[in-house]
């Protein structure tokens, strides 16, 4: 409370004397920018889809950011409200208050941040503090950060802080302390003899350590000391030459028995390699990822979305079409997985026989992830270290196979169309997105999207989607029958009418027409009206929404079914 008041008073002390002068002196006294995001939902009971009504009957999440900048100095804060949190958000977030505040001073050669900040070292495999507001993820650090640029091309970062964990009318931080260092150097910028070399090379290294008080744990007859300090480090390199790019990162972690790994003392290890080549009209990208016991948190007892220190990206890409994105979305198995992906983007040239007047865009991707190739250890070694990994080869269990293809073409000034196909072999035991099916779901998704320009400023976009799951042989009333996997087949139809630049209207119907249980063949109908005025946007929606998984960046959160109104307002100024 005291800290919050002092911070507000400090901001007032800076800003109050300035506000009077604002108009006389113009931009010299600095500037304030901000944004607002509000989300209000009402809830009605709907036993058919399992929509529950919380005691408050409504949910409200709101965020307001203000940043003050004057020359090299900036300061900002975010005011947040959860009155009460909307369903699907962490239910423990409560009340209104300041959830993020900082001051920053940046010169050419150094930068210092006091208070909250976000940060990412390399790909984030050892450290990533970030915000994914729609998922309720925010692991901002709270402390001090110093960035130095001693010579051109070199950046050194050091930080000490605690991570954001909870919000109850104020920011609540983790018990653990994070200390981290990172150094990165671009050889071409830093060394004269590299300056004229056509290949650009950047190398970097990081070290991250967490301190959390701890005593002992008991396992069988063993009493084991919990390490209070956990260390993690990584090396990385990036090479670019013309259309060629290669990125590699190797990381390790030691001394980290935690809730994710069943409190074993085994070292963690991770490797990420990505290579790409592209030229006008063609792009190719291949990636390999292996992670073994690399999940790192600033509280060893927590799981899921709470207090991650690092970020392990999923090997699959983020899909956007409703049925492809929400029914079987893949998220990294944090205990360990190995996977690879290959992707091609190609544009058939315009004015060619196949490409048509405007060209035709094609993309294809194959991505897969599996369990690790491991051997469980026996006896005391098993209790302490769990298992050993034999290689980076794929283990026996498939987690995901995602094959997708799309082709899109502009036929005329007023008509565009796209077809997309997706095939998933999705292990619901590895990524538990459904309680109705345990095992590998085979799903095919087809999407046809069209975009029609009706007259100046008026356009209609439609999507017709269908998802078909595979079948299993099951004994029903003594007979072997083919039964659809999971919730069976789905269809989605979307129509979106826009009157540029201010209005949009959309209707979405998601229909579970192939559910093995005829009572569950439900339509989820949802309509939205929106008005956009530059950087301000208001939308009002009403209807039913399916219980499902909402994912961003390979991190997913379960969202319960709901029925009711939703009003959103976003604005930047």
């Amino acid at each position, binding site marked *: *409370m005291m800290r919050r*008041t002092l911070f*507000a008073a400090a901001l*007032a002390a800076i*800003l*109050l004397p*300035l*506000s009077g002068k*604002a108009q006389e002196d113009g931009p010299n006294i600095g*500037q*304030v*920018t901000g*944004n607002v*995001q509000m989300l209000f939902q009402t809830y009605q009971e709907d036993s058919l889809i399992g929509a529950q009504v919380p005691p408050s009957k409504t949910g409200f999440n709101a965020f307001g*950011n*203000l940043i003050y*900048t004057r020359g090299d100095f900036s300061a900002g804060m975010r005011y947040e409200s959860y009155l009460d949190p909307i369903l699907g958000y962490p239910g423990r977030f409560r009340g209104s208050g300041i959830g993020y505040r900082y001051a920053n001073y*940046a010169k050419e050669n150094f930068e210092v941040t006091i208070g909250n900040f*976000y940060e*990412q070292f390399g790909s984030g495999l050892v450290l*990533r503090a970030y915000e994914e507001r729609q998922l309720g993820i925010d692991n901002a650090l709270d402390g001090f950060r110093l960035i130095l640029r001693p010579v051109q091309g070199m950046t050194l970062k050091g930080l000490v802080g605690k991570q954001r964990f909870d919000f109850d009318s104020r920011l609540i931080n983790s018990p653990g302390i994070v200390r981290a260092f990172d150094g990165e150097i*671009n050889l071409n*910028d830093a060394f004269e003899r590299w300056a004229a070399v056509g290949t650009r090379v950047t190398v970097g290294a990081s070290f991250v350590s967490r301190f959390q008080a701890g005593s002992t744990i008991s396992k069988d007859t063993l009493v084991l000391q919990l390490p209070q300090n956990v260390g993690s480090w990584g090396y990385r390199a990036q090479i670019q030459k013309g259309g060629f*790019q290669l*990125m590699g990162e190797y990381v390790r972690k030691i001394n980290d028995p935690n809730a994710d790994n069943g409190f074993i003392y085994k070292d963690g290890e991770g490797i990420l390699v990505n290579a790409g*080549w*592209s*030229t*006008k*009209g*063609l*792009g190719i*990208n291949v990636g390999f990822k292996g992670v073994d016991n690399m999940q790192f948190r600033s509280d060893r007892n927590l799981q899921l979305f709470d207090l991650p220190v690092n*970020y392990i*990206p999923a090997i699959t*890409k*983020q899909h*956007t079409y409703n049925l492809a994105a929400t029914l079987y979305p893949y998220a990294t198995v944090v205990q360990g997985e190995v996977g690879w992906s290959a*992707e091609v*983007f*190609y*544009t058939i040239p315009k004015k060619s026989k196949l490409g048509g007047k*405007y060209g035709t*865009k094609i993309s294809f991707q194959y991505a897969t992830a599996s369990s690790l190739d491991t051997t469980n250890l026996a006896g005391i070694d098993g209790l302490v270290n769990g298992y050993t990994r034999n290689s980076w080869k794929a283990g026996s269990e498939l987690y995901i196979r995602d094959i997708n293809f799309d082709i899109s073409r502009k036929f005329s000034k007023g008509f565009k169309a796209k077809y997309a196909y997706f095939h998933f072999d999705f292990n619901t035991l590895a990524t538990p997105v459904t309680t109705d099916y345990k095992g590998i779901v085979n799903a095919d998704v087809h999407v046809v999207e069209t*975009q029609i*320009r009706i007259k*100046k*400023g*008026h*356009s209609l976009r439609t999507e017709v989607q269908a998802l078909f799951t595979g079948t299993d042989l099951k004994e029903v009333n003594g007979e072997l029958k083919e039964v659809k996997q999971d919730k069976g087949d789905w269809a989605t139809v979307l129509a979106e009418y*826009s009157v*540029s*630049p201010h209005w949009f209207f959309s209707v979405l119907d998601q229909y579970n027409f192939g559910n093995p249980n005829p009572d569950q063949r439900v339509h989820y109908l949802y309509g939205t009206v*929106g008005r*956009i005025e*530059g950087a*301000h*946007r208001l939308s009002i929606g009403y209807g039913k929404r399916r219980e499902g998984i909402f994912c961003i960046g390979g991190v997913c959160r379960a969202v319960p079914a709901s029925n009711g109104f939703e009003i959103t307002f976003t604005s*930047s*100024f």
Partner: protein
Amino acid sequence: MMMIRFLSLVSMMALVLSMGLAQDIPSIELKDLGDLTVDTRALVEEADGPVLFCFWATWCSPCKRELNNYADLYPDWQDETGVEIVAVSIDDPRSMMRVKPYVNSVAWDYTVLLDPNKAFARAMQVNNVPHTFLVNTEGEVVWQHNNYADGDEEELYEELLKLAE
């Protein structure tokens, strides 16, 4: 204490209102697709004409529609208004390496910057993508739009012509 907090909030709101909408471009260092470091404010200062910042991501369909539609019009816009388009990708480590192959495959002629932890997006008060900012030669944001529907480029084109006058 409540009073101080309240006063500080009111003073900030008053300050915001008194300053109008002129927003300058913050100075953030980002990497471009050639792994060169680019300072966002310096980019605006060094540009000959207005700059259009388009925040996008490889997973954002309306963003790609917007930038693909601009691509057809861009040569004319450049001739008539001198505008430079800067496409700022907020793809995170999961999809960051897909940006360059995608951009080359669709042959965008834009400067493309990578903002994987949203440092620039946050400083520009971007809530969600697509979000487009038109910046004049003084470095001030003169127009912005947080959405994309086919046809929105017509309003943008009018704004560009106003700046070119």
